[in-house]
């Protein structure tokens, strides 16, 4: 018998891992990237990996990016797999983004407002011309920013609208929000669960969905009420103390979208909000999240929900890129047993069809 079944899965895996390690390192004549360099100089990649990896640790996110060769979905997956093994000591209190130490804060709905517009470190008005000076090896450090925003209290735009009764109020729920990392999604999904899911969701997927609501797949008329980015304090209440203590400070980006609401029999027309919040500086993600959050509120606001972005199951089941990449990529695992049964089945169906045609 000439045929010998394929063997050696174990050796093949080891050889593949070794090859991967060499590819990751690249040309050994060049210095290796340090985790610190990634953390400092690829900061927005670090932010995205922390958000989608659902774990705030800049150093570990940078390490994941290095290990994943810059594949950010793979890096988010590495971080997720690590976070699941961590003990849970406490749940933080809700972040007070109203007390944010602001580095950037803009509103598209008011020309000026208390606290002012703070452009901060943004790509928005850069000209997208490749800067060949950056290609030089010994880049001189740029000068420090001239002035940072002073700790002036900056009221939220949505608060300004609410004073006039134009913005639908948001009541803090009494119930403990569900925890997506401990319990599977359940439908209908209330807003805390939806927001959790969107906060971990894939930026690209949410971007496309948010975009679709602007193009008519959904009933969106959004304005950026406010985007703010800066540092907020994280607090927990240890049960043995019974009062809140600070455990650190993190950077977050918050977006509040203002949307029309036609009103109903019981409510006069007013504005409603879509909300986005992400780790780090991730404006595109926060804005897309706010658009999708508002779209997903269609059901509770009594609007017709027909667009993809308005379907809870569609959005929430498909926005997690670690789940999505796993299931898409698993198609490269062997499926020859099932394919074999498909082969036999299609031969059987064709035989039946040909026999009937001949009769």
């Amino acid at each position, binding site marked *: 018998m*000439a045929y010998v079944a394929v063997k050696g899965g174990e050796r093949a895996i080891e050889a593949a891992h070794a090859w991967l390690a060499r590819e990751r390192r690249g040309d050994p004549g060049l210095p290796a990237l340090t985790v610190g360099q990634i953390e400092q100089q690829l900061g927005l990649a670090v932010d995205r990996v922390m958000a989608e990896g659902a774990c705030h640790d800049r150093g570990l996110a940078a390490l994941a990016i290095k290990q994943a060769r810059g594949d950010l979905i793979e890096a988010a997956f590495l971080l997720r797999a690590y976070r699941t093994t961590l*003990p849970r000591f406490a749940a933080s209190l809700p972040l007070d983004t109203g007390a944010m130490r602001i580095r950037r804060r803009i509103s598209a709905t008011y020309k000026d407002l208390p606290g002012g517009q703070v452009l901060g470190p943004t790509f928005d008005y850069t000209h997208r011309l490749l800067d060949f000076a950056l290609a030089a090896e010994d880049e001189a450090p740029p000068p420090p920013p001239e002035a940072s925003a002073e700790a002036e209290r900056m009221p939220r735009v949505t608060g300004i609208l609410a004073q006039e009764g134009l913005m639908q109020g948001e009541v803090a729920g009494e119930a403990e929000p569900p925890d997506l990392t401990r319990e*599977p999604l359940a*439908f209908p999904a209330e807003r805390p669960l939806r927001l959790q899911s969107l906060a971990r969701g894939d930026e690209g997927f949410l971007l496309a969905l948010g975009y679709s609501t602007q193009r008519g797949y959904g009933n969106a008329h959004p304005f950026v009420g406010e985007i703010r980015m800066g540092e907020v304090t994280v607090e927990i209440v240890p049960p043995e103390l019974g009062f809140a203590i600070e455990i650190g400070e993190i950077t977050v980006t918050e977006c509040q979208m203002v949307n029309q609401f036609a009103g109903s029999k019981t409510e006069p027309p007013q504005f409603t909000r879509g909300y986005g919040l992400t780790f780090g500086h991730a404006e595109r993600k926060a804005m897309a999240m706010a658009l999708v959050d508002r779209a997903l509120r269609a059901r509770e606001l009594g609007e017709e929900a027909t667009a993809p972005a308005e379907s809870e199951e569609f959005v929430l089941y498909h926005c997690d890129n670690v789940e999505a990449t796993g299931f898409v990529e*698993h198609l490269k*695992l062997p499926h020859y047993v099932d394919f074999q049964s498909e082969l*036999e089945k299609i031969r059987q169906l064709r035989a039946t069809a040909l026999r009937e045609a001949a009769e």
Partner: protein
Amino acid sequence: MSAATGYNFGYLDEDTKRMIRRALLKAVAIPGHQVPFGSREMPLPYGWGTGGIQVTASVIGPADRLKVIDQGADDTTNAVSIRRFFARVAGVETTERTAEASIIQTRHRIPETTLREGQILVYQVPMPEPLFRLEPRVAETKRMHALADYGLMHVKLYEDIARHGHVAISYNYPVMVNGRYLMSPSPIPAFDNPKMHRNPALQLFGAGREKRIYAVPPYTEVRSLDFEDHPFEPVRARAGCALCGSRESYLDEVVTDDAGGRIFVCSDTDYCQGRQARQEAAE
């Protein structure tokens, strides 16, 4: 701590294991019903068997002997990878012999060797919902299971027969468990479905990405859906294994040249090797 220091025995932390164990007990008590569970991210990707791995990790102990197969074979890369994972995080003995294993984790096959009491078969499940191609909304399919309303599936099978003269499902062929719940057998070929029926072993199903666990207790009725005038017929290639000659086992088709040459060999490598060894011994 296990063989791989820094991680708990079986990789999962005890809270997660308890949560999965509770789900498993309810799954056994309600045969065929999908129990949602708080599936965790595992160090292997979704789609690679994270559900099966979590079930195995919650069940396995130092006295167990683990066999892992993918496509019926012990030496496929993913089977090797999962077996190595458990050898590392649980330090358990592994085996390729179906008869020697206390836990068998599988993707896409049921071993040919008849299972016995005391064995646990853990299936890796990509899509636990048998109705998902007919109704993608989970809220809807939950309601259908609650009402045992499986008309949609019967209509689909009936339409297949009207159109093709046969049911056109060749794998992941839906089954009724204990006369109550419609269940996905995972993407095993329909050929394997009859092995689920009144099997002496305990059958556990884990879907990691979809976060569902379900079970078939031993000796439980598992019927492939069919019609009186169109009874269920498991399909296999009409050939014998080129290595061991078996005409009963499920066969893989191997293309041997680019002129249409092909042979058939057992998909279950342990079964095939056992038969070859016995034939050699008899010679």
